[in-house]
């Protein structure tokens, strides 16, 4: 009878998932840390990080990847915000259909979309390289910027805008002092949804530049793929560096998002 009473308390229903999370989420992440600070023989060492910071090429790749991710995020924001704004505010005949058209590409496998852009470049014989990479990244992730911003703008209380107008604000003031602050949560989640995948991508750069440009993600992938067992510890160290970037970004986003929510 005892096990039934255990089952009666519904708290216990999460135990299987808790076990699952510990085994397949927490333990694997700990393994990254362990591998990063050990050598292939299992001895603790800092060699993997030393190797990274002393390889000029690897450090350059790291900085280049960060820059590409930041630029992509900026371009997506500059292109995406007006689109989301127009869709949410202008009197379109069919705003829902418009929004759907912008979201639809998210449902298509990103590799196929990337390859389609490669073919587009080939067709007009535009050389593949840094420019193609930026174009492809923006193309792949623009919907992820538009969607959250559109969502926030749509939920915005329009009477606030009218109130600002009535109180004598001009169009620019209404935008910078009312609409922009209100759309902050959407902007932050858009930035995170674009920055996180672009900073960690490894397949897109290969396909869009024919392996001419290596991004940080590809560096990690190579350490685990072609590098063989001796490179795993180095790869784990690189993964840990990326993990730190992701953690910092999401922490920053979380904080900003919650603070802007409390303002509202």
């Amino acid at each position, binding site marked *: 009878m005892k096990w*039934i009473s255990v089952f*009666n308390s*519904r*708290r*216990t*229903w*999460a135990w*299987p*998932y*808790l076990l*699952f*999370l*510990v085994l*397949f*989420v*927490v333990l*694997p*992440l700990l*393994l*990254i840390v362990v*591998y990063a600070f050990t050598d292939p023989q299992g001895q603790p060492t800092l060699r993997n990080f030393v190797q990274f910071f002393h390889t000029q090429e690897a450090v350059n790749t790291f900085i280049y990847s960060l820059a590409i991710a930041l630029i992509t995020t900026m371009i997506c924001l500059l292109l995406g915000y*007006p*689109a989301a704004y*127009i869709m949410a505010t202008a009197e*379109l005949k069919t705003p*829902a*259909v418009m929004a*759907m058209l*912008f979201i*639809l590409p998210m449902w*298509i*496998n*990103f*590799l196929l979309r990337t*390859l*389609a*852009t*490669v*073919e*587009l470049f*080939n*067709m007009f014989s535009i050389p593949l390289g840094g420019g193609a990479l930026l174009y492809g990244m923006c*193309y792949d992730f*623009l*919907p992820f910027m538009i969607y959250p911003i559109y969502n926030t703008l749509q939920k915005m209380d329009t009477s606030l805008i009218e109130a600002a107008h009535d109180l004598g604000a001009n169009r620019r003031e209404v935008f910078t002092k009312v609409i922009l602050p209100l759309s902050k949560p959407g902007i932050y989640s858009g930035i995170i949804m674009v920055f*996180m*995948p672009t900073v*960690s991508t*490894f*397949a897109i750069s290969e*396909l869009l530049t024919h392996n001419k440009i290596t991004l940080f*993600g590809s560096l*990690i*992938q190579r350490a*685990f793929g072609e590098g063989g067992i001796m490179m*795993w510890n180095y*790869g784990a160290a690189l*993964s840990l560096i990326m*993990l730190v970037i*992701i953690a910092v970004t999401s922490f920053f986003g979380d904080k900003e998002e919650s603070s802007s929510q409390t303002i509202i």
Partner: protein
Amino acid sequence: MNNNTYMTATQKESQRRQRDLLVRRICSQAYLWLLLLFLYAPIVLIIVFSFTKSKVLGNWTGFTFQLYENLFTGYDRVAQVRVDPNLYYSLYYTMLVALVSATCATLLGTLAAIGIYNMRQKSRRAILFMNSIPMINPDILTGISLFLLFVFLGISRGLATVIIAHIVFCTPYVVLSVMPRLSKMNPNIYEAALDLGATPFQALRKVMMPELWPGMISGFILSITLSIDDFGVTYFTKGSNGLETLSTFIYADARKGGLTPELRPLFSLVFLTILVLLVVMNIRAARQAKKH
């Protein structure tokens, strides 16, 4: 006289305003369509070139349904060669992995959501934090961490590890889509069912499930799409004994140089199916919104 000039001034003002509004409207519409052109040009390109049978895209060799025929028969009648059988294997494994992992994730996630909902604030926050890790983590990190786990535990990678990995990144979304349904539900009906003599399992199936159903369905559908779309996690957990999903097949294919032409009609059909599904869903949602 004075009145008259006043009238024309306001008229002029309103005329100017209307013209401004019109210009602004045309500009914003044009901007949206330009962006859509940017987003859809490659997709349209693939669809157009699914109706010609040239090996490379961009080389139009006349209108034909040849590639569609090849895709469905698995055999190129003209060139007398088989279509790469790996395409069909990968399609089969994509479906299998998506269905199995989405089903497991939905069951696991629903149970978890009920449990988490009834937890105390502190432990609830802890488990929800763990739950958010796979959603925040980029696929490459999820993939590599699981790769290291399987190596560490000495599990050889294959179909089972891919399915486990997909359950890992699908379940958090199920949990988050079921939780809101729980807070809308009357918390006492489960206890009422128990008091009236139902076993916990009966109470779950007959009382709670009907309430949670919509959340479970949306979690399941989200899991399916996430699973089908995944590349990074699958890449690191599939091992090297030839298991491919559609994503990894496309990747390997592209690295070899040149896509299998039959992917073009496959892509077009998938795209049109999704388009139709979304349009139908949107129309239904709009109709329901009108009703209420």
